[in-house]
């Protein structure tokens, strides 16, 4: 019952924030100095009748509140309007491009979780030279922007060594995996370093606590202590970085997709930003914010299961 109330409360909070975000996104576009109608006409002069027809088709002649409510109602039904550049439904565009972005993000996430946790574990448990190496490597991983990693990986593994294609998305699952490997590595690099750092610090913190000494003195095997009593406890702290991981993946994919010409929603966001295709920009921004908040909600709900010490309550702002 307590859990249910907590879940409902968080869900309501999320809905409120999402509503605020949708208002910001729509409002920002409404305030734009360029008139969408002039982009539709692409510099051609149009008769007043044609202009009026365009204004009516895209509902540009209505007051702000009416436009906003209409847009919100349509969005709730999955209708994001028509793209100004592509002249098709934005939802169609998104449906075509979302799979490659989701695959790319999933591949990067798998890399981040596997390598980040592993390196953090090794750094905390082994210490010494291994730890120093991991510290220096992760320092550089954190300092390397994804687009720098993308350009360097492309130059080395695609252009010089020909191991991977220089760009594109590929057809079919096997081709897609092959095409998206380098982008996934570029996307994951920063987060691997970040997660390794957080895992290492959290595990070192737990290693110094009394219950670890007690477990050891009672003859519990070293591996078991690390796995059951150190890593498990540290996982709660690690989980608090999940929001950062997801938001970084979502927004960084724009840069990586652009560098590797991956036909995902990130590249679409970049293209539609340069062409002022407002309906598409609005839709992608809203989807990114919604995805980000959904993951945050899930993590908040899962956190007590991973770490039973966490009390259910209003979200505490992490330090």
């Amino acid at each position, binding site marked *: 019952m307590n859990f249910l109330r907590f879940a409902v409360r968080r869900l309501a909070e999320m809905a409120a924030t999402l509503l605020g975000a949708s208002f910001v996104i729509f409002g920002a576009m409404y*305030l734009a100095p360029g008139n969408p109608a002039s982009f539709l006409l692409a510099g051609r002069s149009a008769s007043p009748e044609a202009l009026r027809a365009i204004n009516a088709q895209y509902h540009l002649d209505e007051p702000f509140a009416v436009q906003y409510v209409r847009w919100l109602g349509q969005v709730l039904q999955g209708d994001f309007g028509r793209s100004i550049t592509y002249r098709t439904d934005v939802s169609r565009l998104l449906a075509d491009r979302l799979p490659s972005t989701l695959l790319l993000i999933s591949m990067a996430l798998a890399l981040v979780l596997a390598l980040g946790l592993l390196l953090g574990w090794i750094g905390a448990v082994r*210490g010494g030279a291994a730890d120093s190496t991991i510290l220096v490597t992760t320092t550089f991983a954190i*300092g390397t922007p994804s687009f*720098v990693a993308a350009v360097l990986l492309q*130059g080395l593994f695609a252009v010089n060594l020909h191991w991977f294609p220089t760009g594109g998305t590929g057809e079919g699952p096997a081709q897609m995996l092959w095409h998206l490997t380098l982008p996934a590595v570029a996307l994951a690099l920063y987060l691997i370093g970040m997660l390794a750092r957080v895992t290492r610090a959290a595990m070192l913190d737990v290693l110094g606590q009394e219950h670890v000494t007690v477990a*050891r003195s009672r003859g519990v095997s070293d591996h078991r202590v690390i796995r059951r009593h150190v890593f498990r406890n540290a996982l709660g702290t690690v989980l608090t970085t999940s929001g950062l991981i997801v938001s970084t993946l979502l*927004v960084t994919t724009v840069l990586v997709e652009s560098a590797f010409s991956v036909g995902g929603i990130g590249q679409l966001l970049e293209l539609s930003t340069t062409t002022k295709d407002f309906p598409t*920009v609005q839709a992608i921004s809203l989807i990114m914010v919604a995805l980000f908040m959904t993951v945050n909600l899930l993590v908040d709900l899962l956190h007590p299961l991973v770490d039973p010490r966490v009390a259910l309550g209003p979200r505490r702002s992490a330090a």
Partner: protein
Amino acid sequence: MTAATLLRRPGLARIRTSRAPLSLLCLGFVALVVALAVLAPWIAPYDANTVDLGNALAGPSAEHLLGVDASGRDTLSRLVLGARTSLLGPLGVVVFSTLAGVAIGTAAAWRGGWLDSVLSRGAELVFAFPGMLLAILIVSVHGEGLLAPVIALAIAYLPYVSRLTRSLVLAERERPYVEAYRVQGHSGLQICLRHVVPGVAPVVLAQSTINFGYALIDLAGLSFLGLGVPALTPDWGRMVFDGKTAVQYGYPLSAIVPCAAIVLTVVAFNVVGERWADKVSRRDG
């Protein structure tokens, strides 16, 4: 095995102190980059926008120490002059987000009540947008240029500073000296400005130094998308953008040079900032 593991905590301290040369090195690098940016027009050997198509993509030579890019522009000159925009942008982000963040965080913590909850809600809303996304949104509305992305990122970074300040000020206002000043008749504003804010400043500034590195990455990323600085402005992110086609044709140098500059600068600022944060927290603890 057990004993060895238990001895590791002091061992860690040894690693920390032995990393001092690294952080000194980074501090030196930060000073070098800043000096380059300030003295850029006198150091750069050529004009950053002199095009020499006949010489395009030439490798390093005595005339062009770091080679030239696809338009035949001298890479070294663009690198040195690009240090200005590449550092000035993040500086703007950090200065604005720090000033506004400290003001908002202090007000929220000091006043509490409705002001605190309004400001916290606002922060939640900004947190819902990943920083770069907010910047892309604002650029899509206002067009490219340096100012719009800087303001957008400053807004995106603001809640991080204000939340940190809020928690620090909440702890600080419980300390006896604040009550002592209050009893002596100092106004709340006076206590905040003269005593509380200077008290929490070191921690906030350490955080801002680390933010500088992230702002540099984000702004360079926007330039890489072609959404940041205008086309001809020398800027490291823009140089990577201009050089990425050449990379695909097997001439990576004009892109690698700015890449290295970005990575080294960000690492240097991060190490210096974290070292500072370590020192500050140890003094408090």
